[in-house]
């Protein structure tokens, strides 16, 4: 019986002693979908991945992967998975080629078939010229590519990628993205975690943002931006020490229409009733800069200039997933 969803988790929980790494999360990944897990360091992404991959036990909750419980049918579930762990764990005692072949052997694949498949994967990972090298002689990025290639040896239905592009150069990254697109087209389900928001926007149809083991938001990248951020962002730099105090001032300036307009003698432009027009939402303080969230960043900048504030640099841009991420998981200092 074909199952609609590739992965379904309910109340998924993982405890390490007293510490709860994953705290009762629910999610569903549909077949052929590419699904992202975002969250700050220590949010529980890798732990979740490991529970999907049937290499970590659950403390509570249910999980079904391809219609099977990974804890009860470990080998069968894993036979359908391709796993790219966060840390490369290549076999240092084997050569590059042997790493792929042996990995295929673990799935019980015949040697004949594997020898052709391995060449193909080496080609994909651009490691053909290194095929006989020892793994320890590879560079960090090459190791990553080998780990990725190795995970594809069993032509998995579901591919779990834990920060797949960490350590890859831009070129290799784009090659991988392209390859992942093609895999998705051929029906492979992708589940990935990443700290690169551009990657998540590129690759994920749907994603969840987790923090401290809980789901903070769920949706498509565009939907999340719509729901959790303004249309535009104004990035300002005032210099290291002044960011904090300027944030207060900006909030007062843009946030409340009253004092902003009354304190604004130069405001000859009558339509500049701040707040509503600017579509101001909040200010985010980063160590090196301030992010002003507003529907129209241009008008916000005009107002700021009008108020006599002189940021060292300013940049107007569209909201991105990164802003959603900061909003949901960052400690917002000024709201």
């Amino acid at each position, binding site marked *: 019986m074909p199952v609609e969803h590739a992965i379904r988790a309910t109340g998924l929980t993982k405890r390490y002693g007293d510490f709860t790494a994953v705290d009762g999360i629910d999610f569903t990944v549909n077949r052929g979908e590419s699904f992202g897990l975002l969250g700050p360091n220590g949010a529980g992404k890798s732990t979740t991945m490991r529970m999907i991959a049937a290499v970590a036990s659950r403390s509570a909750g249910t999980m079904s992967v391809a219609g099977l419980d990974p804890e009860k049918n470990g080998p069968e579930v894993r036979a359908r998975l391709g796993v790219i762990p966060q840390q490369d764990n290549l076999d240092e005692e*084997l050569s590059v080629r042997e790493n792929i072949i042996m990995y295929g052997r673990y799935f*019980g694949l015949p040697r004949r078939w594997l020898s052709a498949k391995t060449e193909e994967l080496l080609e994909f990972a651009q490691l053909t010229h290194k095929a006989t090298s020892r793994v320890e002689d590879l560079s960090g990025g090459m190791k990553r590519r080998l780990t990725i290639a190795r995970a594809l040896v069993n032509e998995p239905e579901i591919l779990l990628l834990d920060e797949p592009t960490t350590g890859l150069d831009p070129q290799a990254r784009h090659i991988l993205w392209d390859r992942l697109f093609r895999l998705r087209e051929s029906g492979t389900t992708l589940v990935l975690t990443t700290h690169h928001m551009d990657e998540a926007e590129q690759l994920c149809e749907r994603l969840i943002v987790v923090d401290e083991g809980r789901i903070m938001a769920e949706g498509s990248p565009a939907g999340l931006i719509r729901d959790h951020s303004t249309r535009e962002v104004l990035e300002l730099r005032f210099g290291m020490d002044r960011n904090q105090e300027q944030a207060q001032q900006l909030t007062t300036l843009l946030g409340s229409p009253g004092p902003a307009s009354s304190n604004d003698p130069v405001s000859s432009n009558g339509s500049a009733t701040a707040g509503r027009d600017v579509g101001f939402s909040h200010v985010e303080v980063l160590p090196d800069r301030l992010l002003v969230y507003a529907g129209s960043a241009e008008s916000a900048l005009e107002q700021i200039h009008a108020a006599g504030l002189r940021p060292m640099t300013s940049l107007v841009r569209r909201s991105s997933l990164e802003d959603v991420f900061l909003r949901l998981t960052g400690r917002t200092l000024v709201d």
Partner: protein
Amino acid sequence: MSTDPLTADPALKGPASPAADKQAMAGRARRFGALHQAERTLRSMRAYGTVIIFSSVSQPIMYILAMGLGLGVLVGEGGDFAEYGASSYLMYIAPAILASTVAMAAGIEFTFPVMEGFKWRRLYYGAQASPLSPGQIASGHILAVSVRFGIHAAVFTVVLYLFGAISSPLGVLMIVSAMLGGLAIGLPIMAYVSTLRDEKGQMSLIQRFVIMPLFLFSGTFYPLTNLPGFLQVLGWFSPIWHANELGRLLAFGQPTPAWLIVVHVLYLLGITVTAWLVTVRIFTRRLGLEEWRGRTPGAKADARRQDRLAVKDASDVARSAAAETAPASRGELPRISFRRGFGANYYSGNIRAVFGRGLTAIRNNRGVIFLSGLLEPVLFLTSFGLGISPMIAGVDAEQVGLSGGGTISYAAFIAPALLAVSAMNGAIFDSTWNVFFKLKITKLYRTMMSTSLGPVDVAVGEICLALFRGGLYALGFLGVLLVGGLVDPLAAVLMWFTALFVALGFASVGMAVTSFMTRFQQMDWMMMVLMPMFLFSATLFPISVYPVGVQAFIQALPLWHAVELMRDIAFWDFSGLTLVHIGYYLVMIVAGLALTTYRMKKLFLR
């Protein structure tokens, strides 16, 4: 060593500016740097201080009970040590055992920590950033290790006195001769290790090809003259022999010509000083301005291996081209097969892949490391068989529980036992140390567990691999025994199977034990259990020398059963007890495997 003018001038020494203080600091470091480094090393040793103290106390007791008293009973019947100045066998070997244990410690302290300093944790590069000179870093390590030797030797000597194994107060000086011996064997090794850029099994090669042979052929358990001439030469070169002889001179005044005393002292001092200087030089090369990165051992072998693979590759490609099988025509993904039904979550029916991976890894490693495992029983047999035999008329068959009466040669007596010991050692090493290493360090099992393999596949595959290796070693040793006429062919065949059987018992229990291990230090403790088991389990002398209570205890241990079983086969003398031995191992295998299976998740899914 010129005095720094800045620090020598008291006017500039005051706390006026912190910079002046730094100068003073640097000056101090320049003069006492080696001591600072020594202190640092000693502090890090404290982590396993209990192990050091425990082994310093337990080793002498163990050797006194086993060799001094146990083997002493056998030797005492035929040997006479009065001509050497000792009143008993125990007294004769005591100084040598002290020197040997220090040498063993040298084999550890001058290898792993040095490699750690240069490569694994790069501690020396940290020290290099301080005002220490590279030479001081080297000397600091040497001083710290000397202190550790001193503590060990002092504790050891006290225990020997308590057991009456030393009579002369001069015996205290043994501490010095033993330390000197330790440095003379350890410093050349340190010099060698400090040239290495990378560790590819050299540490275990040093243990097996240097420390072990020197220990066995340095006249520790018998006068060197008992050995045939060519082996005596080995002893003359061994610092351990010189340290042994000096120790004997000091402990009970072994009659020694004056010139020989001078030779002993000069030889040990000469090696120590030369090697110390060389080590300092190498440290200066590596940590100084030159920043030499060290030799890559086995680089040539590696290149050769790659060439070989590349050639094989080319021929593979040529063959597939000839068959006109372009990679694209590999066809659909074949069905990934796994078992269903009972236990499918644990066992997917693919042990072969795990075993195959192990074979490939062995093939990729350097063959000499693999073969070195074969060497140990052969060395033991040569050393004890040739060295002890002249002191023993033969072992009374009845005394060792064999029917038929008569006496058997000492070599024939220990040979089956050594086979059992080697089966045990190999199996334990593979199932505990190796498994733990792949679990914690290389994380191999994590990789395997992300495929369709189940934990049982991995466990059984690893056990099979241990048996394969053990089987090869046993085959080699039995070959030596056959050539030496110590067993007959039929018995040899049976003994080979028995070696596998015994290895299986230890491997399955070892794996179960590993599932409870969390830290490497626990491995040390386990090794400390194995050593006495080897010494007491009727391997080198019959247990009838002990009181009944002790005998019963030994008979409860697994190695005794293995040794007795091997002997029953070797001397073709079966009884009801033979069945008991077999039964003991059956229980071990079943219980070990059951516990391993039960702990499976803990074992591979951490």
